[in-house]
C-alpha cells in the first residue's frame, strides 16, 4: 500500500505542476517503476520461496555441516514431518537437519527447511522438547517470517527491479546478493514479535502432534538456567528475546492450551534411545 500512496502523491504533484509547464516528466515511466517495486514484493510465490530456501539452506550448511549420524537425522525428520502434517502447509518439501555445531540454536528457512544444532539437541530431555522447538521453527515457515524479512531487506538493498531479476535468474549476480542477504539475516534475527508468535504456534503444533505441550517451555527453562555468558548461546541470545520474557509471554497467553495438553506423551525414552544410536 505504501507504493500506491506514493504513486497517488506523485500523480497529484505532477498534474498540479503540469499546469505550470513542468517539462519532461514521463509519468507513464514513473507509474511503471512504482508498479514493479510493488509487484516484486507481492509476487514471491511458493516455488520461488522454496528455491530461495534451498539456496539459503546450502549456505547455512556451508557454515556447519550435518551431524554424521543418519539415524539421528532420520529421527528428527520423522518428528518434524509428523508435526508439519498437522499444519496448513502440510505438503511443503519439509526437511530437517541437525547441524554439527556446539552452539545452541535453531533456524527456519523459507520453504520448509529447519535446522537445529547438536548443541541444542544435547540439552533436550525428550521428544516433546524436540517437538516444541521444531514446532517453533515450523511456525516461522508457516507465517513466512524470514521470507518477509528477506523481501523487505532486499527491497532496500537491491535497487529497482533487482529483486525481480534475482528471482528470474538463478545464476545472476542479483541472485547471489539476495541469497547472501537472506543468509546474513540469520546472524541478525527477526522482530521480537515474530519470535513470540512462533513460540505460541510451536506450543499449538506440538500439542496437535500429540505431544506434551510443555516441551517448548521446558527447553526455554533449560536455556534460562544456562550461563548467559556461555559463548555457545551468544547468537541465539542476540537474535531472540530472553528466555524469561518468552516464558512470561507463554504463561500469559497460552496457559489454557498448555494445561489442556500437558498430559500427552513426552517420549523421553524414545528420544534418548534414538540420540544414543
Amino acid at each position, binding site marked *: 500500500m505504501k507504493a500506491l500512496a506514493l504513486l497517488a502523491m506523485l500523480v497529484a504533484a505532477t498534474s498540479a505542476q503540469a499546469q505550470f509547464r513542468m517539462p519532461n516528466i514521463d509519468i507513464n515511466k514513473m507509474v511503471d517503476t512504482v508498479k514493479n517495486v510493488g509487484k516484486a514484493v507481492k509476487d514471491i510465490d511458493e516455488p520461488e520461496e522454496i528455491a530461495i530456501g534451498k539456496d539459503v539452506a*546450502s549456505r547455512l*550448511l556451508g557454515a556447519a555441516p550435518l551431524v554424521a549420524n543418519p539415524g539421528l537425522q532420520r529421527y528428527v525428520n520423522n518428528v518434524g514431518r509428523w508435526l508439519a502434517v498437522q499444519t496448513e502447509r502440510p505438503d511443503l518439501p519439509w526437511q530437517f537437519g541437525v547441524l554439527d555445531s556446539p552452539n545452541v540454536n535453531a533456524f527456519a528457512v523459507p520453504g520448509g527447511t529447519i535446522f537445529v544444532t547438536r548443541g541444542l539437541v544435547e540439552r533436550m530431555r525428550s521428544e516433546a522438547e524436540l517437538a516444541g522447538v521444531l514446532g517453533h521453527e515450523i511456525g516461522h515457515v508457516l507465517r513466512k517470517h524470514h521470507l518477509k524479512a528477506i523481501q523487505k531487506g532486499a527491497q532496500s538493498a537491491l535497487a529497482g527491479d533487482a529483486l525481480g531479476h534475482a528471482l528470474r535468474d538463478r545464476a545472476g549476480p542479483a541472485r547471489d546478493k539476495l541469497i547472501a542477504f537472506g*543468509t546474513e539475516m540469520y546472524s541478525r534475527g527477526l522482530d521480537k514479535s515474530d519470535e513470540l508468535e512462533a513460540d505460541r504456534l510451536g506450543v499449538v503444533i506440538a500439542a*496437535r502432534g500429540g505431544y506434551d505441550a*510443555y516441551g517448548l517451555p521446558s527447553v526455554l527453562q533449560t536455556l534460562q538456567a544456562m550461563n548467559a555468558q556461555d559463548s555457545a548461546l551468544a547468537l541465539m541470545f542476540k537474535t531472540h528475546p530472553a528466555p524469561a520474557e518468552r516464558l512470561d509471554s507463554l504463561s500469559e497467553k497460552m496457559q489454557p492450551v498448555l494445561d489442556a495438553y500437558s498430559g500427552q506423551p513426552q*517420549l523421553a525414552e524414545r528420544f534418548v534411545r534414538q540420540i544414543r*544410536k
Partner: protein
Amino acid sequence: MRILSLLLLVPLLAAAEPATVIRPAELKQEPASDAATLATLPENTAVDALERKGGWTRVKAGAGEGWVRMLSLRLGGAATAKPGASGLTQAFNVARTGTSGTQTTTGVRGLDADQIANAQPNPAELAKLEKFAANRDAAASFATEGKLSATSVAYPK
C-alpha cells in the same frame, strides 16, 4: 555418540537443580491444581527442582517437598549456571575432536554471527539433507509407534 547419551542422562537423573520461585506458588501434594496444598511459597523462595510432569515441577523447599507450577519457577540459582553444564559440553567437544578428527576447520566454519554472514554454499550437504527427509506415511507410522495421536488445537488469536 556414547558421550552424548551420557550427557543426556545427566539432566534426567540429576538429583536437584537450583531454582527460584518467581511468583507466589502453591506447593501441591500431587501435580494437579485440585491436589492438597501443602504451603504457599512466596516470591524469591529458593528451591531445588527435582523433576517435571506436564506443567508441574517437583521441588524440595524449606516448607517440604511437593509440586509447583512449572512456570512459577526460574531455573538456575541466583546468577549461577547449572553446575558443570558448559564444562561437560567442553569435555564432549574435546573428546569429539580427539576421536573423530573432523573438527579441524573450527575457526573457519561455525555458527557464530560472522561465520553465518560469510558462509559459502555446500551443495553436497544439501543433497544429504534432502535424502534424509521423511514422507507423510513414514511420519505417520513413526507417530503410531510412539502412541502419538493427532489432536485438533486452534491457534491463539
